C-alpha cells in the first residue's frame, strides 16, 4: 500500500495553531521552522507506534491499546506526557460512556414512542385484551393459592 508523501504529513493549519498556542504572544514562527516541526511530529508518530507495537507483541496481542502507547512514552523518555495522557484517556472514556448512554436513551425513547403509537392505533382492542388477561391472571393466582 503506497501512501502519497502528503498523506504522511499533518495539516499545517493545526500544527501552526498548536505551536502558536505553546509559545508566548507575538513570537514569529518561520515557515521552515513550522515545516520542520511538522515533519518531526510525523516521525514522532512512527517512532511511538513502533515502540508501542513492541509492547503489544510482548503481551502477545495484535491490537495496539492505550497502555501500549503509555508504555511507549516512558520508553521514549517522554514521561512528562504520561500524566496528561492519562487524564485525556479518562476524559475520552467518560465522553464515550456519555455518548453510549445518550444513544441508548434515545433508543429507549424511540421504542417507547413506537409502543405508544401502536397503542393509540389499536387502543380499544388492546385494552380489552389487557383486561381479560388481568382477570385471567387473578383467577389463576386464586386457584394456585387454593391448591
Amino acid at each position, binding site marked *: *500500500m503506497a*501512501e502519497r508523501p502528503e*498523506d*504522511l*504529513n*499533518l*495539516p499545517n*493549519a*493545526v*500544527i501552526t*495553531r*498548536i*505551536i502558536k*498556542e*505553546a*509559545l508566548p504572544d507575538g*513570537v*514569529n*514562527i*518561520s515557515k*521552515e*521552522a513550522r515545516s*520542520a*516541526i511538522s*515533519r*518531526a*511530529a510525523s*516521525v*514522532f*508518530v*512512527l*517512532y*511511538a*507506534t*513502533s515502540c*508501542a*507495537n513492541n509492547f503489544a*507483541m510482548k503481551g502477545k496481542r*495484535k*491490537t*495496539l*491499546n*492505550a497502555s*501500549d*502507547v*503509555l508504555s511507549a*512514552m516512558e520508553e*521514549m*523518555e*517522554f514521561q*512528562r*506526557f504520561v500524566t*496528561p*495522557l492519562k487524564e*485525556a*484517556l479518562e*476524559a*475520552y*472514556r467518560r*465522553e464515550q460512556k456519555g455518548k453510549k448512554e445518550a444513544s441508548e436513551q434515545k433508543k429507549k425513547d424511540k421504542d417507547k414512542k413506537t409502543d405508544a403509537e401502536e397503542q393509540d392505533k389499536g387502543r380499544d382492542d388492546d385494552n380489552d385484551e389487557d383486561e381479560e388477561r388481568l382477570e385471567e391472571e387473578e383467577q389463576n393466582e386464586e386457584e394456585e393459592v387454593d391448591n
Partner: protein
Amino acid sequence: MADAVAGRDKCGEPRLVSLPLSRIRVIMKSSPEVSSINQEALVLTAKATELFVQYLATYSYRHGSGKERKALTYSDVSNTAEESETFQFLADILPKKILASKYLKMLKEKRDEDEEENDSDDGSDGDEAES
C-alpha cells in the same frame, strides 16, 4: 469550518484532540508490523503528538538564538535535535544547514586529501605490479 481550526466542536466545547485522527491512523498503519489499532490508542497517540509539538516548539524557542529576536527559526529546531538527547531521534531529518559555499569548500578539501594519498601509494605499487 473555522471551528475545526479553532479546536472547538459543534457545541463550542474545546476538543479533546485537534489533530485529525484519520491522518494519524494513516501514519501509524504505514508501520509494517502493526496489524490493528484500538481507538483509545489512536486518540492517545494523537494527543501525545500534540504534546510533542508543544514541547519541541517551546524547548527550541527557550534554547534558541531566536529568543532575542522573538522568532523561532529552523536552526533553533535543528539545534535542539542535535544537542538534546530526548530529541536525538530527529537528528537525521533535521540536519543543520550550512552555506553552499562552505559545503563546496569542504568537498574540495576532501578531494585534495584523497589525491594526496593516491600520489604516495603510486610510487611503491607501480614496480610490484610489473613483476
